[in-house]
């Protein structure tokens, strides 16, 4: 049996029956990472020793009678999420040697649930990007086609699952950074409702949009992971004190009568034909399962990308001000005057895309432009949110393509930031509206590259999104196809 091919739920079942131990499972994952990661580069840091110690601890807990769906299961954590005592770089040279002094709440919760951390996954620097080509260290390759990107910014987390390097991963999603790479890598990724999961200990990109999300081979795996990390955190004022439903037990419900809205604005010109077809046939599957499908309209969709880039960059310009070389991280120009030291440190520590966004955001917030850009964007954001409220007054979920194309070639879009920004065109609105959204495989294009289907729900109705996705997943076989060796 190839332990690395197990889904979270399969691994959990074997662990529960004591047919395998966490030490074996973790050993297989580490072995697999060692064998494949010199090509894929999913991981920035592999924490082999930590993982094996945690695996032994998990086995001991189980021997004492403890149970749990994640107890002893190997996971990877995106390198923008803090892991105490383990290097956390956010994919940036400016934090190259930064060892996190505390655990993010999501890290703490995963470890408390008994998950085993095998390493920190690669990402676009400070989660800014749609391809993981903007990592300050290395470009992650798409396991389906190593000349292509895995998507971004959580590309390392998505590739790690597709390459069977661990059972689950955490990513972060500010404008689609969990769903878009999930689509590119043929796995399942979920962005929960804003406020559902704590952001404490997650390196901030855009505070009002960021949300941690689970990634796994299956919907069930994602449900297990979300169940572990969701919930109110007193350390994050924007996390919401609401009870967390039992996502896994709610998965199996019928979707007969589920009202599914298909927004006409999401089937745009320029979209890859294979993607269009795959999504349309996925919708027919849902219909066959008893869903009531209707076309709906989200009229402000065309403003989502500019609105997103104004708000996200404005917040980023401020969130990244703390990387100044004073307290931690890279410091350059120490012998020079203060201003020079700031300039050297930030010029040398940040990559091009990060600098571009800091400058955009600084401009958008500066005196005289604030009203025209930032404030205007906030108003449009409200309109976008209202579009969704309108649609959700008659629909239970919305279904769209996750991305307009399948994974593109490495280097193909790096020279044209605007082209790159359009990769997230179908996911961005969901962040602006703070809604839960999930991407799952719904087919392959003519090059054999995975295509993603996005399911979006009402705020805090992750369970409905999971139900629709699970019903589709059970009715199809896309998720069973894995990367050939």
């Amino acid at each position, binding site marked *: 049996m190839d332990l690395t091919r197990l889904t979270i739920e399969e691994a959990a079942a074997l662990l529960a029956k004591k047919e395998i131990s966490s030490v074996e499972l973790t050993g297989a994952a580490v072995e697999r990472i060692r064998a494949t990661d010199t090509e894929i580069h999913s991981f920035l840091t592999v924490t082999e020793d930590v993982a094996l110690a945690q695996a032994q601890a998990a086995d001991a807990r189980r021997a004492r009678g403890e149970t749990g769906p994640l107890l002893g299961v190997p996971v990877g954590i995106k390198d923008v*999420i*803090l892991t105490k005592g383990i290097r*956390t770089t*956010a994919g940036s040279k400016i*934090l190259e040697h*930064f060892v*996190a*002094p*505390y655990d*993010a709440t999501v890290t703490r919760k995963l470890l408390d649930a008994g998950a085993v951390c095998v390493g920190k996954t690669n990402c676009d620097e400070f989660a800014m990007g749609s391809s993981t080509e903007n990592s300050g260290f290395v470009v992650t390759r798409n396991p389906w086609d190593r000349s292509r990107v895995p998507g971004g910014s959580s590309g390392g987390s998505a590739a790690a699952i597709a390459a069977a390097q661990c059972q689950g991963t955490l990513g972060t999603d500010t404008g689609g950074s969990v769903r878009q790479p999930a689509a590119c890598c043929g796995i399942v990724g979920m962005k929960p409702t804003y406020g559902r999961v704590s*952001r*404490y*200990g*997650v*390196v*901030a990109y*855009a*505070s*009002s949009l960021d949300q941690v999300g689970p990634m796994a081979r299956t919907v069930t795996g994602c449900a297990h992971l979300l169940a572990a990390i969701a919930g109110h955190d*007193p*350390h*994050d*004022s*924007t996390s919401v004190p609401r009870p967390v439903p039992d996502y896994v037990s709610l998965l199996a419900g019928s979707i007969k009568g589920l009202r599914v809205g298909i927004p006409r604005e999401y089937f745009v010109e320029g979209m890859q034909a294979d993607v269009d077809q795959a999504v349309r046939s996925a919708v027919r599957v849902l219909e066959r399962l008893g869903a009531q499908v209707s076309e709906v309209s989200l009229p402000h969709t065309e403003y989502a990308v500019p609105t997103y880039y104004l708000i996200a960059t*404005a*917040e980023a*310009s*401020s969130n*990244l*001000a*703390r990387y*100044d070389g*004073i*307290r*931690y991280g890279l410091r350059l120009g120490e012998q020079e005057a*203060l201003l020079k030291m*700031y300039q050297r440190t930030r010029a040398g520590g940040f990559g091009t895309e990060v600098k571009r966004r800091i400058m955009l955001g*600084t401009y958008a*917030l*500066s*005196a005289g432009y*604030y009203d025209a850009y*930032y404030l205007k964007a906030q108003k449009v954001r409200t309109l976008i949110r209202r579009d969704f409220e309108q649609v959700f007054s008659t629909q239970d979920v919305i279904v769209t393509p996750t991305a307009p194309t399948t994974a593109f070639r490495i280097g193909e879009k790096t020279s044209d930031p605007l082209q790159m920004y359009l990769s997230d065109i179908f996911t961005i609105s969901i962040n602006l509206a703070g809604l839960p959204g999930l991407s799952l495989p719904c087919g392959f294009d003519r090059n054999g590259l995975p295509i993603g289907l996005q399911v979006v729900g009402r705020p805090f109705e992750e369970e409905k999104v999971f139900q629709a996705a699970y019903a589709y997943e059970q009715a199809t076989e896309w998720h069973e196809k894995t990367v050939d060796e």
Partner: protein
Amino acid sequence: MSSYETIIGLEVHAELLTQSKVFCACSTQFGAPPNQNTCPVCLAMPGALPVLNRRVVEFGIRAGLAANCQIASHSRWARKNYFYPDLPKGYQISQYELPLCLNGFIDIEDNGESKRVRLTRIHMEEDTGKNIHDAHGDASLVDFNRCGVPLLEIVSEPEIRSPQEASAYLRKLRAILQYLEICDGNMEEGSFRCDANVSIRPRGSTPLGTKVEIKNMNSFRAVERAIEYEIKRQTEVLGGGGRLVQETRLWDPDRELTRSMRSKESADDYRYFPEPDLLPLLVSDAWIEEVRRHLPELPDARRQRVVREYGLPEYDALVLTLRKDVADYYEAAVRQYRNPKALSNWVMGDLLRIIRERKLDNALVIHDWPVPPERLAAMVELIDSGEISGKIAKAVFDEMVNTGKTAVQIVAEQGLTQISDEGPILNAIDSVIAAHADKVAQYRSGKDKLFGFFVGQVMKATQGKANPQKVNDLLREKLDR
């Protein structure tokens, strides 16, 4: 009278006396070793997030109500972005376009005149750390202990017209904050700081002149002197046909002048925007009413009560109530022994002198003052009962301060009890008269002024303990016979 009039607006930063910081659980205790009171949140570690301390809002509401403000039911946090080593996040969380308190006023007394100074706003924000520059000039260090300590910024309308009014306003404001027990008002330690915006304009004209901001004033005297200096400087520049520039100037207390810090022409752009890590701040009417119900007696009310209850002159009442600790002390003493005016004289005189000399006038509490109120009261009682003279009392008071003993102890130990018995006084008078027969003759021949000489000699002979009234009476009887 100058042909210019002065326009002063004051911005006060008051550090709040909460146990923990505004956005984390770190202690606010003053004087801890550098960087001890810090955590991931106030050091702005990656991923750290602020969580609002409810007590800070309560203190803000308290201040707002005491200063007659409207309390906003809906206010908001903002980020003020700028780079400085003592500002770890690269922005300061503050309030900007929607502050907690708006449109208040404070009544002040200046030269017996009452005046109302309006407040524009009171808002909450976090303090920054402190840069320490190495004496050799080759390194700078940062202490983040103060980083995240809650502050209130209290902004007055530009309605103050003189350095004296500015000082009276600050004293009143500090008194209010101290009465509310939300700020210790210590200017030297920087927990009560003030920036002044000063401009002048030709008397009778309406547009505001070019405004200069003065910083770095850490005593009431410094505020008065700095504003005085600035008015003089600006008057001279304009009088000489010069032009003023809008700038920030620092008060240099050693040289007693202000000097330019930076020009406002390259004005900072703080790029304020709503803080996305914190929710909008909603304050319910019920909460406001709850705070209002628990407001303590404030300085104005106490002053009026002190006049009413103890029959003190207005001036005494003002001096005694302008600091809560002093007023508390005074009332505690009066409760022990009811001679309000005598106690008022001792508190305003000798006690405050000692407190100032020993720099004990910075804290809110009086428990470490050298003479507890009941001991001062007991001493005044000794004077009133004729046990000691007022003159002896001065010495007894100093001894109380130095030794911590009670007046009764000191009087007994040093034999300072006043001599009121006629016998010993007459004995002393007799020997003085015998020793100065020539002076007696001169006195009796009309040189009245010598009477004081005889009193002095008798007091000397009794080591100052003779009851002066008795000495006077008996001496006159003897000499005029």
